[in-house]
């Protein structure tokens, strides 16, 4: 059984009173996520990521198409017992404390009082809010709110976790913690489906990603598949090279940058590494590092978005957002 599958899932909004003015938020989206995967949903703001998540959670209803979560169709609220959800920009009840709120969340999931207490304690510990357990939520910072949001998403120990922009509002330490958390969830065999517009996170965490723009699926697969495994360039860093060295490597070099006593050379991607090394060493260079630079998701993204924008502009179908990473 798949964790999640959508079939031609479409969401069309009617803007204002006139039937003519419509916005296609999601256009015939078809994808599947296997259990145990960490799946990333990527795209610029307004691409339809949050729309998809809200459709899956039953907060809004599809115009056409269908989806299943753990084999259950949309609208079956019982499956919510096995999933968790962190909304984008979560907001809670100002008058409750963190542990009161987790208690409420646990109660709604059917946990008994003892289990709720235990789970609340453990989760607050896990997300680093143990000291703020008795603090009223109105005094929480954005980062604390985000962590609590993750905690409440896990209160029922779900099999599938849906996270909408889980890193938002967190400082680098917090983001690191969330990354570790996601990896930990995967280790436990859970499925994690999260949306983000921060690409490096997706690159390091996701087994597979889907790229969305203007409600349409632009690409789906492992990061490897999407990038095609091609190299963008080779990076060679030398320590204080003599002019002769640079000359020897000039044939391979496409760009060079000097910073202090280091020179970073960008070599053509099809350059033969052994030949380059031999030439460098022969010229007496002091090599600090030699790295292949793969095409990043970011580059792919910007390129595809640019294409999509160009196509959309060409079709004359309303202005879109330029790709924003």
């Amino acid at each position, binding site marked *: 059984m798949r964790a999640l599958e959508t079939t031609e899932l479409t969401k069309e909004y009617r803007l204002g009173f006139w039937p003519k003015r419509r916005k296609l938020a999601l256009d015939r989206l078809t994808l599947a996520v296997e259990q145990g995967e960490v799946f990333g949903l990527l795209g610029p703001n307004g691409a339809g990521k949050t729309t998809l998540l809200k459709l899956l959670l039953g*907060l809004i209803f599809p115009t056409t198409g269908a989806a299943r979560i753990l084999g259950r169709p949309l609208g079956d609220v019982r*499956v*919510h017992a096995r999933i968790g959800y962190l*909304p984008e920009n979560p907001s*809670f009840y100002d008058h409750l404390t963190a542990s009161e709120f987790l208690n409420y*969340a646990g109660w*709604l*999931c059917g946990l008994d009082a003892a289990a709720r207490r235990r789970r609340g304690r453990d989760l607050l510990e896990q997300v680093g809010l143990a000291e703020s357990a008795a603090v009223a939520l109105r005094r929480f910072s954005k980062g604390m709110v985000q962590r609590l949001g993750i905690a409440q998403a896990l209160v029922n120990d779900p099999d599938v976790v849906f996270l909408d922009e889980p890193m938002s509002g967190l400082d680098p330490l917090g983001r690191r913690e969330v990354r570790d958390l996601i990896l930990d969830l995967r280790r436990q065999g859970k499925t994690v489906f999260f949306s983000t517009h921060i690409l490096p996170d997706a690159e390091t965490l996701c087994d597979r990603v889907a790229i969305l723009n203007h409600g349409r699926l632009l690409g789906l697969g492992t990061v490897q598949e999407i990038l095609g495994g091609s190299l963008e360039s080779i990076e060679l860093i030398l320590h204080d090279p003599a002019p002769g060295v640079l000359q020897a490597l000039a044939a391979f070099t496409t760009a060079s940058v000097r910073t202090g006593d280091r020179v970073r050379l960008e070599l053509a991607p099809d350059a033969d590494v052994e030949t380059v090394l031999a030439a460098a060493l022969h010229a007496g260079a002091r090599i600090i590092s030699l790295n292949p630079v793969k095409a990043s998701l970011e580059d792919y993204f910007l390129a595809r978005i640019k294409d999509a924008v160009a196509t959309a502009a060409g079709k004359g179908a309303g202005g879109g957002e330029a790709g924003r990473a």
Partner: protein
Amino acid sequence: MNRIAAIAVHTFKESVREKVLYNLVVFAILMIAAGLILGGVSVGINDIALVNLGLSAISVFGLVIAVFIGISLVWKEIERRTVYNILSKPVARAEFVLGKFLGLVLTLVVNTAIMTAGFYLVLWYEKGTLGAPDLAPLEAVYFILLQLTLIVAVALLFSTISSPVLSAVFTLSLYVIGNLLDDLRSLGAQSGSAALRGLSRALSLVLPDFGAFGDIAPAAHGQLIPGHRILTHSLYAALYATVLVSSTILIFERRELR
């Protein structure tokens, strides 16, 4: 059941933190105490005026509280998106509506009980002792509470459709109309057209009959409500509340939470 109880308890606790409620209850008790003055300024109606003013205060402030909590507590939940936290758990939309309704009713009962306690304190101060005829106001309070339950259900219904201000206006308008159903019917009866007669009769049967729960003046004269009337009116309130809450559920189940 458990989930509905969770939502109801949570709603009640949230309303308890509303400062506005405290102010309203305090004002109500002040108004009740003012009944002592009214009796003193007038002649021969000390107890009557006290009961009239006290029960009217409980009714009016209860109405304000009902409209306020019925609208704000749900609207806030939807506007601030805290409802996402609830509906992402295994909670049906119907359970959410039911839980909210029961929590609001619980709040109303507690508030009304406090105001009634204040009322009886003032009555006891005025009369020195309390006897059997002083139960009549308690029955009137029960009828007021039935009214408020329907009001809060109406407010809940409207607040799932429209903005808070409009919801308040519609709810209060429905309260006024619901007190004038006899006039509605007679207006139609006096008009020439059979269609208007039929329409006004139909409306007067379908719209909530708030006027039927009016019992303040008789209570001021120590008149008790006959038992069968208490039963029929309780049944009517239960049935109509079911109508309102079911409508709310049907609407809310289709509502997109953007």
